[in-house]
């Protein structure tokens, strides 16, 4: 797998190569482009993690940051304890775990330590008792501080944050929490956020997860907590590559416009995109919108892709350079017939996610009818796409839009808003 396959051809409209812990597949949205006018072109780079044997997986550096504010009393705290204990039980001796509980203040229940004496750790978790307010920011900060003691290149650094309420002690704006997520992911820490019940701030929790490339879950009832912890931990254990850096250079009439869903830095003809981690058997894609101006081209439209990542199993940095090119066509309709479905399906999903976010913003401003209209448009757009590209996944997305549209008002809105946020994050970074 380490051997780099360099596929380079002017006529090649897609490329597929494997290196290190990943396979990379890159496509442009069409095999041919009409040479008569300016047009929008999309590029999709899809990474797939090559799974490793779980017995030799990379060691985990896990921080469990648990809300023990007053509102967590009863079944919630019981289930949270149960879920945290389950997480500890499924760890191995080389893994690191820390447990932080926060209410009005922060308590380091278990400082970062190798998982050697599980029973000791578990008995401490069992002492969690709900009281006071919600100092979420301090909790996350302290969790990160514990993790910093053990951050190494070949560890999977993951924080799982559980909260059921509004962060009322410490900074609580989604903007600041998003920035915190961005800082943490730079340090190699992903924060997965689990919102429990209907009282938590989904904007804050989803931003933190989104910016740190972690998962975001909306858990309606405490009974589901154990399952979600299990799922999240299972994901964390499957990380095969971290620190995936992608540099895209647009050539021959192509100009970057924006990155869909993810954050990216654009300068001149270059786009830099950072993905924190990729799971074994998991896919993550980068979709870039570009403008193609035939008048500025002095050859076939082409993108050069430089990728680098840290392979956890081989404990080294991997690099590769790849080129994807497309040819010109004299006929507009002929060119349009060469659309690549796998690219367009992702493009449609991400564009629809943007509209979904816009609809949520409108609803927040009280424009219920406008939001509904937009969601229904979105639904039609997605169902047409589903038929055109033969993609059941788009049909599912369409159904979700309809569900959103019918729950913009009344009792179900609070829950629906949380569902929307969770789905948006998933669409943008988990797929």
């Amino acid at each position: 797998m380490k051997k780099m396959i360099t596929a380079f051809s002017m006529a090649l409209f897609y490329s597929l190569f494997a290196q290190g812990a990943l396979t990379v597949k890159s496509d442009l949205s069409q095999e041919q482009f009409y040479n008569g006018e300016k047009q929008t072109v999309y590029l999709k780079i899809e990474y797939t993690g090559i799974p490793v044997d779980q017995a030799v997986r990379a060691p985990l550096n896990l921080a469990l940051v648990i809300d023990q504010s007053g509102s967590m009393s009863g079944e919630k705290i019981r289930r949270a304890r149960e879920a945290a204990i389950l997480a500890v039980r499924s760890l191995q001796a080389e893994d690191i775990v820390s447990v932080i509980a926060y209410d009005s203040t922060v308590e380091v229940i278990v400082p970062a330590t190798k998982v050697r004496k599980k029973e000791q750790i578990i008995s401490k978790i069992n002492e969690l008792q709900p009281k006071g307010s919600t100092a979420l920011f301090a909790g996350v900060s302290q969790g990160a501080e514990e993790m910093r003691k053990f951050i190494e290149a070949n560890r999977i650094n993951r924080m799982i944050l559980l909260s059921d309420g509004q962060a009322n002690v410490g900074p609580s704006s989604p903007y600041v929490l998003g920035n915190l997520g961005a800082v943490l992911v730079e340090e190699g820490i992903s924060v997965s956020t689990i919102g429990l019940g209907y009282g938590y701030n989904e904007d804050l929790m989803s931003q933190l997860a989104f910016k740190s490339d972690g998962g975001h879950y909306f858990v309606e009832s405490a009974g589901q907590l154990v399952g979600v912890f299990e799922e999240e931990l299972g994901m964390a254990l499957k990380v095969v590559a971290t620190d995936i850096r992608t540099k895209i250079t647009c050539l021959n009439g192509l100009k970057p416009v924006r990155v869909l869903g993810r954050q990216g830095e654009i300068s001149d003809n270059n786009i830099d995109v950072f993905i924190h981690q990729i799971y074994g058997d998991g896919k993550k894609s980068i979709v870039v919108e570009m403008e193609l101006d035939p008048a500025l081209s002095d050859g076939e439209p082409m993108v050069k892709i430089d990728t680098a990542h840290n392979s956890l199993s081989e404990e080294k940095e991997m690099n590769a350079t790849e080129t994807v090119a497309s040819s010109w066509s004299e006929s507009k309709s002929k060119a349009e017939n060469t659309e690549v479905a796998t690219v367009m399906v992702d493009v449609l999903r991400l564009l629809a996610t943007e509209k979904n976010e816009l609809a949520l913003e409108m609803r927040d401003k009280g424009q219920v009818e406008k939001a509904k209209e937009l969601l229904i448009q979105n639904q039609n757009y997605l169902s047409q796409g589903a038929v055109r590209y033969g993609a059941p996944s788009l049909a599912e997305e369409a159904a979700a839009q309809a569900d959103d549209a019918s729950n913009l008002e009344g009792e179900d809105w609070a829950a629906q808003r949380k569902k929307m946020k969770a789905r948006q994050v998933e669409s943008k970074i988990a797929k």
Partner: protein
Amino acid sequence: MNGTKVKNLLLYLAILVSVILLFRGSYRLFRLKQFSSDFQITQEAGRIHENLLTYCEKSINGLLDESLHSPENDSWFSTTVLLDENGKLKEGQIDNLSKRSTRVFVENNKRLLEEKVLINYYKKRQNIESDERHSDLNFFWYTGYQNQNLQIFHTQKLSSGYRLSSMNTAYFYSKMMVELFRSQPALGKTYVALLSDSFNVPLFQWGEGDVESKQFKEILRAPLAEPFNMWHLTVYSLNKNNDWISVFTHIASLIVSALLIVFTVFLLLTSRHRAIRQAERRVSFVNRVSHEFKTPLTNISLYSELSQMHLEKKDEKVTAYLGVIRSEVQRLSRMVNNVLGFGKSEKDKLELNASTLTWHSFYKEVKSLQPEQDVLTINYHLQTNSDEDEKVAIDKDALIQVVQNIVSNAQKYAAGGGRLDVDFFRAAESYCISFRDYGPGVKKSQLKHLFDPFFRAEHDGLEAVNGTGIGLSISREIARKHGGDLTVEAANEGPGLCFILCFRELPYESTHR
């Protein structure tokens, strides 16, 4: 009786609860006793405030310093731009802004840049510093809020112009939280300290408790030093007035629970007393009435005797009737005497009158008794292994009284069983009769008390059954006078009780009294 039991149980429960309340109250009062005076609180709060304020300022300044001296860590600053002497962006800065974050920064801070806020602040600060402290620091920190989001700028004078850096506040906050967490002052449960921002949003809390609640009272509040002078450190203490109120409520609740205990104990004692007094009154009434019966009974007896003598040969039938009346009256007199004797608790005076009859005729006599109520099927049975003509000297009337008492008890308490088996049998020297009912029976713990005077066993739903509670104790006395006994035990099989009456012939003295 069931009602009384429930009532007693409730009373015991009330006592238990009151005692618990009393202990809890005393404990709390004891704890509260430890609160201190106003002066002490202010002093202690002042000390805490001073320590934490110093700590906060030191931590924050330490972090600001750290941010400047860790160039390898680019998490601290999000953007850096160069300005000319006039505070304008240097030539080419915007064109060269390759990073999105820088562009965003310039867009977001237009006003700040145009109005040269930072440069002016820098100049002002430098004037103050060089005048007052003769220092020539070439940089300053500036803090402000935009859309309620904290901004921290670092302005440094360069040889030509300025370098302006914007700190990543999220990173600063998280570092600050960790630093503040390191300080864990001993606040007990009395104090809470809070660092809050310009919008009164709590940033960090020391100590447990919700300062928004009425329990806490603000004692001391002061701003931090520049550049974080828009932040405040506040120390709260548990509200003392509140404490006085709770002292009073505690004392009041203590008194109430003590009174409750006294009252319930009193109720419990009086209800016991009342039951005993009632029984005694009933007996003394029976005694009085029985006493009143004596004279008429004697007269009836006397006159029926006289009439009998008068009519002796004229009308045999009437004479026979008078004989019956006389013997019945005599029986009644003895019963009255027995009751009286018992009432005076002079059991020895129990008067017995022996007559000689055959065991078989006694059986027949008992069998011919008409029960007061017809609620039970009574099955009489005589073991015939004995000589039918064997004679025995007993007080027939007294023993019949015993039998009647037992039968009447069975009718009252075991009617539900529908049946009563009365067996006559011989056991060695004794003559025995067993009475086996099929009623609900009596708890084992109560069985031995059945013969206690005034004792009444608990019977579900039978409170209405009347009686004095002395019948069985007299009956046992009669049996014992006959050299036997009256005992009771739970039936061998199934529910119900089995009374066994045994007696022998009366001793000589009794026979001739």
